[in-house]
């Protein structure tokens, strides 16, 4: 209780209560709430509850995130990530008709979610097993079931077999144990039977498909047979389709060269064979069939060749148990996809290509709906990969169709009657690295100024006058803009929203962020206009036959350099257009280091940090650092190249100065010792390899990451303390250390006032390299930090804020630096002088103030990294978080002292000036008359 009171008190006393202002929220920040690439078989339109008129799109993505998207505007209704970013590629999402739940299965975890709001209804965990398949029993003994529909799950590993789960509670109703050792493949239900399909692998030769039929009520085995599939099937991948939940479940496979399609109606032993129609080699065969029990048993087979695609529609005759071809759709050039939708018993197939949407009925080849697709900049050059559709049928013709289609450029789009209703940039969920890029105009200006800087005064003057004359061409446009700008200003509306395209703004909030995704896609977002996509390219077009493993980016003037382990050298991409630049086009830029500095590069080589003279990797290392006692280096963080420092000292309450230890070559190395559960932090001078400071922590959970960051003269890192290894508690710690040149105020340490220093060749007079005086403090934090960084401003005058990512609560928090100041007095109240510095009494625990949360109501999932950049305003720093979601905002750690807030009433100010002017007009004659009268009377 006392602790609580103390914490509450400190929270009140905190001088900087930074927060996102209510009128700034949703204006300065933006958030792309993503779900990832939707999986074809786990995406569907569905009513959130039985009587609902509108339906939502439910999807389970390749990242195992379950999301419900409103098909009207593409807004996310809810989403859940039940597995913590596991790379299980297998996840299933199913929903029964007229149910208010959707059931997902990822790994060993089966969860039913409320379809309308995403709340958990029940959860069943089958330990040690992996869910291979999940189906909903749509009908009970041939009659529709209006209660919560039960689910049948197929498990592998551990307890292989089938389980029927109660639709209301998730309890197991019956279990069918399979001890044959076959590979479980899929479960399929028909109204009367549950079919369990497995791959039987005999000692010799290929696999055989084994179908076991079970009673849905008792789970008892009814029948079992093996299909003669010869040697065509050896693993999962060769089976094209195992129809689930249809009136006649199908099983289809093909031979290795995709020439012959074999179809079996599950429950029968007959196999129908069909030859593929195309003369060309078929690259891929996909089978599209309706997923409803009461729909017609028609299905579509899609053949994709290198140049085009075609399809054939087949009908199944249930009585004869035969499959016959009904008609075929003509081959079209380019890529396209087919989707299946049902209306009552009728089945409709929608053919979606980049240029048009065509709907055909499964019964006849008549086209019942046709819409040309309007071009959209977001989808330029992309082709549909897969999708789902919903059709509206009126009097035998399709009056409307909407399809949620994943395009090859990673956009998930909804095409409503040929019109692109929305696009969701789902490829951004794969982001692995991001960098800031300047707008072209700013870069051009910076370049011009640089040119002027290198010339003599006269030439520079002429150059500048010429530039100004050139700039006059923008003058008419500027004049034309004045009225709109004025009106926008007076109306109190931020003109941010009016900006379209990339455009320079006076505050420098418009910048580009170039993002690289894991599989080689590069995109640029304009952070000034709500993170809108500027361009989006596939790197494979520039580097064919490369498998990208998380490209790294480096930004230079006007272009981005892309490097990847998958290829030699680097690609140069124009940062404004996304076009490829050849290395000839690029002026080799002088290194960002001043010429008279010696360049030392360092890298982790065989678990040892080594420094090399110059950039050559093969030169002899000048220093090496291997942590003692067999510790393993897990990471290092260097001071950023651009880290401006406004003041080289810290002014104390008595106006003396503690000089900051400002060494640009500081690097924080984190190392762990696996056996002892200890972590050590080493502060190195990376020019000489000197060890400046070392801290060791015991009882550390070394399986968790140890994020660290370094800026100015302080560094910070976070640890997870593990109770298992002897410590009495489990928790998270944030350690902050600040470096000073000397412990004594007004003293510049051993280096004195000398204006230059070298750690490689330390001055002999002064002896050893100067070691900093380190003040450090540990704070307990309520949550684990996965990533941390520091805000950046133009000149470093504004106080900094530590930005930490909390994966547990899906948030990004900005901790003011004075809260974690290591100089906070311990065990006593601050003296008057310390209080003037803003120091408060040390409290061991820091509670993350809700006002520090930058993401307010947004839920920022799976952040891998946060990057910050200066803006045109000194007070403001731009923040961009990427990973799974994309989130961006602006922060002003010392408040926006250099810009008028939204509360400033410009109209009132102008009205006051006008009123004063009118007043002067009235008063002026009166005063004049009085003055003349005084002259006469005097």
């Amino acid at each position: 209780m006392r602790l609580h009171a103390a914490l509450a008190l400190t929270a009140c006393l905190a001088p900087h209560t930074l927060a996102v202002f209510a009128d700034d929220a949703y204006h300065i920040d933006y958030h792309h709430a993503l779900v990832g690439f939707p999986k074809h078989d786990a995406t569907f339109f569905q009513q959130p509850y039985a009587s609902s008129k509108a339906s939502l799109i439910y999807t389970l993505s390749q990242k195992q995130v379950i999301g419900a998207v409103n098909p009207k505007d593409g807004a996310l209704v809810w989403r859940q990530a039940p597995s913590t970013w596991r790379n299980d590629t297998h996840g299933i999402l199913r929903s029964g008709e007229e149910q208010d739940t959707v059931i997902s299965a990822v790994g060993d975890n089966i969860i039913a979610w409320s379809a309308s709001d995403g709340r958990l209804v029940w959860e069943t965990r089958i330990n040690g097993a992996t869910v291979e398949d999940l189906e909903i029993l749509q009908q009970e003994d041939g009659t529709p079931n209006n209660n919560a529909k039960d689910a049948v799950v197929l498990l592998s590993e551990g307890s292989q077999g089938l389980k029927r789960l109660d639709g209301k509670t998730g309890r197991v109703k019956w279990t069918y144990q399979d001890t044959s050792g076959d590979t479980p493949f899929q479960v399929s239900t028909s109204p009367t039977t549950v079919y369990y399909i497995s791959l039987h692998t005999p000692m010799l030769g290929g696999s055989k498909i084994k179908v076991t039929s079970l009673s849905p009520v008792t789970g008892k085995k009814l029948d079992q047979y093996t299909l003669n599939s010869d040697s065509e099937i050896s693993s999962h991948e060769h089976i094209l389709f195992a129809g689930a939940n249809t009136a006649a479940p199908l099983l289809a496979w093909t031979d290795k060269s995709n020439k012959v399609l074999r179809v079996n109606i599950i429950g029968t032993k007959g196999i129908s064979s069909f030859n593929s129609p195309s003369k060309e080699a078929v690259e891929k065969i996909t089978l599209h069939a309706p997923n409803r029990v009461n729909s017609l048993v028609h299905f579509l087979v899609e053949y994709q060749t290198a140049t085009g695609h075609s399809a054939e529609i087949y009908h199944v005759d249930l009585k004869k148990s035969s499959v016959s071809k009904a008609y075929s759709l003509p081959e079209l050039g380019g890529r396209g996809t087919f989707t299946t939708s049902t209306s009552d018993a009728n089945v409709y197939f929608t053919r979606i290509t980049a240029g048009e949407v065509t709907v055909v009925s499964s019964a006849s080849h008549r086209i019942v709906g046709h819409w040309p697709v309007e071009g959209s900049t977001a989808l330029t050059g992309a082709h549909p990969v897969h999708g789902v559709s919903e059709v509206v049928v009126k009097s035998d013709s399709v009056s409307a169709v909407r399809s949620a289609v994943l395009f090859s450029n990673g956009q998930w789009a909804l095409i409503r009657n040929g019109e692109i209703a929305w696009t969701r940039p789902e490829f951004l969920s794969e982001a692995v690295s991001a960098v800031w890029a300047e707008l072209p105009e700013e870069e051009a200006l910076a370049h011009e100024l640089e040119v002027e800087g290198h010339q003599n005064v006269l030439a520079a003057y002429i150059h500048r006058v010429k530039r100004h004359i050139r700039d006059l061409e923008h003058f008419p446009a500027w004049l034309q803009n004045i009225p709109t700008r004025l009106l926008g200003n007076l109306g109190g509306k931020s003109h941010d929203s009016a900006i379209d395209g990339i455009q320079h703004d006076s505050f420098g909030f418009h910048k580009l962020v170039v993002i690289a995704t894991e599989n080689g896609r590069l995109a640029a977002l304009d952070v000034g206009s709500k993170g809108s996509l500027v361009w989006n390219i596939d790197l494979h077009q520039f580097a064919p036959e490369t498998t990208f493993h998380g490209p790294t980016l480096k930004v230079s003037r006007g272009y981005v350099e892309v490097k990847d382990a998958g290829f030699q050298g680097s690609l140069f991409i124009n940062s404004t257009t996304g076009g490829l630049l050849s290395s000839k086009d690029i002026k080799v830029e002088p290194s960002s280091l001043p010429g008279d500095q010696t360049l030392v590069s360092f890298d982790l080589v065989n678990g040892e940090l080594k420094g090399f003279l110059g950039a050559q990797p093969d030169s002899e290392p000048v220093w090496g650092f291997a942590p003692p006692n067999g510790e393993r280096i897990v990471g290092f963080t260097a001071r950023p190249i651009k880290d401006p420092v406004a003041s080289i000292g810290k002014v104390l309450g008595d106006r003396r100065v503690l000089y900051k230890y400002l060494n640009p070559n500081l690097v924080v190395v984190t190392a762990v010792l696996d056996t002892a559960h200890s972590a050590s932090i080493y502060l190195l001078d990376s020019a000489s390899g000197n060890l400046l400071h070392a801290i060791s922590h015991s009882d550390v959970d070394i399986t968790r990451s140890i994020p660290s960051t370094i800026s100015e003269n302080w560094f910070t890192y976070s640890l997870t303390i593990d109770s298992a290894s002897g410590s009495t508690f489990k928790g998270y710690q944030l350690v902050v250390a600040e470096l000073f040149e000397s412990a004594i105020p007004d003293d510049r340490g051993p280096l004195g006032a000398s204006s230059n220093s070298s750690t490689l060749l330390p001055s002999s007079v002064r002896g050893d390299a100067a070691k900093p005086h380190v003040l450090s403090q540990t704070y307990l934090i309520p949550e684990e930090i996965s990533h941390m960084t520091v805000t950046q401003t133009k000149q470093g005058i504004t106080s900094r804020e530590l930005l930490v990512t909390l994966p547990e609560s899906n948030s990004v928090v900005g901790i003011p630096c004075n809260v974690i100041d290591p100089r906070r007095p311990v065990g006593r109240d601050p003296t008057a002088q310390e209080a003037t510095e803003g120091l408060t009494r040390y409290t061991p625990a820091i509670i993350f103030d809700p006002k520090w949360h930058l993401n307010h109501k947004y839920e920022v999932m799976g952040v891998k990294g946060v990057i910050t950049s200066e803006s045109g305003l000194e007070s403001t720093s731009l923040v961009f978080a990427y990973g799974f979601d994309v989130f961006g905002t602006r922060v002003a750690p010392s408040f926006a002292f250099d810009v008028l807030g939204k509360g400033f009433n410009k109209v009132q100010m102008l009205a006051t000036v006008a009123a004063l002017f009118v007043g002067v007009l009235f008063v002026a004659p009166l005063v004049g008359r009085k003055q003349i009268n005084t002259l006469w009377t005097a």
Partner: protein
Amino acid sequence: MPSQPPPPPQWVLDLNSAPVSKPKSSIPDPPGYTATVSSKQKSQSSKNAVRKAPTLEEMDTLKVKKAWELAIAPAKQLPMNAIGMYMTGNTLQIFSIFMVFTLFKTPVMAVLSLQRVFAPFETPGTSNRLIAIKVVYVLMNMLMLGLGIWKVNQMGLLPTTRSDWLAWEGERTWSERAVPREWL
């Protein structure tokens, strides 16, 4: 030969000439008695007092005295001002700023008008002695100014500490720059 008129009688003589001085007697006047003085005598005596003009030396001494008084005057205000300054505190407020301003303005103005202040006491005889007085006057005013400076220092407005010159101190330049290889 005309006969000489007879001499006037004694009473006439007595009447016409009052006795010049009181007959000296050893008997003092009784207490409370004041000898009546004739108006003529009175006027005569007062005329004698004005006329008795002070000598130049006397005059100079007088002026010097007066000047000393003037020179010491600022010092007399000093304790009063000091208390006032102490009371106003070290925060930057309109009152303390105003007081400090007057504290600076008064001595400076006083020193500037030094000649005018001491002009009435300037004579050839005093001019030498006045120099010391002026010096003291200036010193006293400097004391006052000193109080003002002390106060400004208390308020933290004087650049006397290291932190005030911090902006002119530069960051060290390092002869080496080390960067991780991936930044190159």
